C-alpha cells in the first residue's frame, strides 16, 4: 500500500517533468534553427539594391584588362558605382563606440533613399541593356556587401552636409586587400574626404572579392570608383 501511494505520486511527477523538459528542448531547438533566417535577411535587401547598377557591365566591357591601371581617369561617372552612403545620426554622436545592433535597421532607411538616388542616376545613363544574369548578380552581390561594410565603418564628421559628395578611386589586389585609395573628386571639405578614406582603410580588406572569378575581379574590382554621399542626413 505504501508502494502504491508512492507509485501514484512518482509516476505522474516523472511524466509532468518529462513533458516539460521535452517541450523546452523542442522550443529551444526550433528557435536556434530559425536564427539563420534572420541573418539572411539583409542579403535579400542588398540584392534588390544592386540590381539597379546593371549598366556596370556595359560600361566595363570595352575596357581591356590591363588598361584600368594604366589609364587612371576613364571618366569616373560611367564606371561601376557602388554608392556608399551611411546613415546613423546615432553613430555620429558616438563615433568611437557604435552600437552593434544599430546599423542593420538603419540600412533599410538608407536603402529606400539609395534606391531613389540610383533610379535617378539610371535615367541619365544612355541605353542601358540587360546583361546576362548570374555573373552580374554575383558581382552585384559582392559590390553590395562591400558597400554595406564600408557604410558601417564610415564615421562622418560633424561638418558633413547633404549635397556633399566625394569620389574615391580604390585599388584592390585579388586577395581583396586595399592597396590604394585616392580622391578623384573632393567634396570640398577635407574632413569629409578624410572620413571617406578612413572608412575604406578601416575595412582594409574585402575578402568578398575572392569568391569571384579572376576575370570578373579584374573587370570590376581592380580599380573602382566609390562615391560617398551623406544624402540621408536629417538636417
Amino acid at each position: 500500500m505504501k508502494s502504491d501511494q508512492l507509485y501514484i505520486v512518482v509516476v505522474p511527477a516523472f511524466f509532468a517533468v518529462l513533458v516539460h523538459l521535452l517541450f523546452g528542448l523542442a522550443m529551444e531547438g526550433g528557435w536556434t534553427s530559425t536564427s539563420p533566417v534572420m541573418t539572411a535577411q539583409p542579403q535579400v535587401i542588398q540584392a534588390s539594391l544592386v540590381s539597379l547598377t546593371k549598366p556596370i557591365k556595359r560600361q566595363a566591357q570595352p575596357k581591356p584588362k590591363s588598361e584600368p591601371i594604366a589609364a587612371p581617369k576613364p571618366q569616373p561617372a560611367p564606371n561601376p558605382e557602388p554608392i556608399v552612403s551611411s546613415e546613423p545620426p546615432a553613430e555620429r554622436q558616438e563615433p568611437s563606440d557604435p552600437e552593434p545592433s544599430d546599423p542593420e535597421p538603419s540600412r533599410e532607411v538608407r536603402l529606400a533613399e539609395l534606391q531613389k538616388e540610383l533610379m535617378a542616376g539610371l535615367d541619365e545613363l544612355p541605353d542601358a541593356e540587360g546583361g546576362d544574369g548570374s555573373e552580374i548578380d554575383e558581382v552585384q552581390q559582392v559590390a553590395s556587401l562591400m558597400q554595406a561594410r564600408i557604410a558601417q565603418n564610415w564615421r562622418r564628421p560633424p561638418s558633413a552636409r547633404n549635397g556633399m559628395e566625394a569620389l574615391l578611386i580604390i585599388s584592390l589586389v585579388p586577395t581583396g586587400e586595399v592597396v590604394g585609395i585616392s580622391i578623384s573628386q573632393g567634396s570640398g571639405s577635407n574632413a569629409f574626404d578624410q572620413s571617406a578614406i578612413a572608412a575604406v582603410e578601416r575595412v582594409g580588406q574585402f575578402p568578398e572579392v575572392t569568391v569571384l572569378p579572376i576575370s570578373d575581379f579584374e573587370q570590376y574590382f581592380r580599380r573602382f570608383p566609390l562615391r560617398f554621399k551623406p544624402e540621408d542626413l536629417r538636417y
Partner: protein
Amino acid sequence: MNEELSVIGLILGASLTVKLVMATLVAASVTSWFMIVQRVIILQRANAELVAFEDRFWSGMDLAQLYRDGSDAIDAGTDITGGEALFRAGFKEFSKLSRQPNMDAEAVLEGSRRAMRVALMRESDRLERHLPFLASVGSTSPYIGLFGTVWGIMHSFRGLATSSQATLAAVAPGISEALIATAMGLFAAIPAVLAYNRFASRVDALLNRYESFVDEFSGLLQRQSYAQRRGASE
C-alpha cells in the same frame, strides 16, 4: 545583430513581473500535468476495480463470503474503494440493522441505502479530487499569460519612446520575450481544459455505474429483507 535569440536568453532577459508570470505558469503547468497523469491512473484503476468487482458480485457467490474476503483484504492493508466500498457499506448496515429486533424491512432498507449513499459521496469525492484545479488552470492561465505579454509589450514600447530611433530591433526582442508568456499560458491551459473535460465525463460515467450498482444491490437487499420478515412472521 546576430545575437542568438534563445528562449532561455529571452526568459532571463525578461522583467521581474514577466518572470513571475512565467514562473507561475510553469508551476501551474507542471502541477496540472502531475494531476492529469495521476487522474488517468486513478480513473483507470477505478474502472478496472469496478469491472472486476461486478464480475465477482454477480458470479453468484455468497455475499457474506464476499464481505469477509473484503475484511481480510483490509486487514492485509489494502484500501477498499469503488464498487466494493459501496457494497461493504450497504451490507454492513443491512446486517447490523436486520440483526436488531423490531426492525421493519423498510427501515432496514432505508438504513442500508443511506449508508451506500454516503459511501457513494465519498467515492465521488475521491474521483473528482483535483478536477477543479485543472478547470481553473484551464480557464485562468491564458489570462495570466496575456497579462505577462501585455506587461512586456508595454515595457518594450516605453523603451521605444525614450530612444531616438524607432527601429524594429529596439522592440522586437521585448515583444518576442513577452509573447513567450502567452505561449506558456496556452501551453498550460490547453491540456488542462482537454483533461478536465475528459475526466469530468469519465467520472460521470463511473458515478452512474456506481449508482446503478447501488440500485441493483438495494433491490437484492429488499428481496432478501422481505423474505426474512415473511419467514419470521410465519
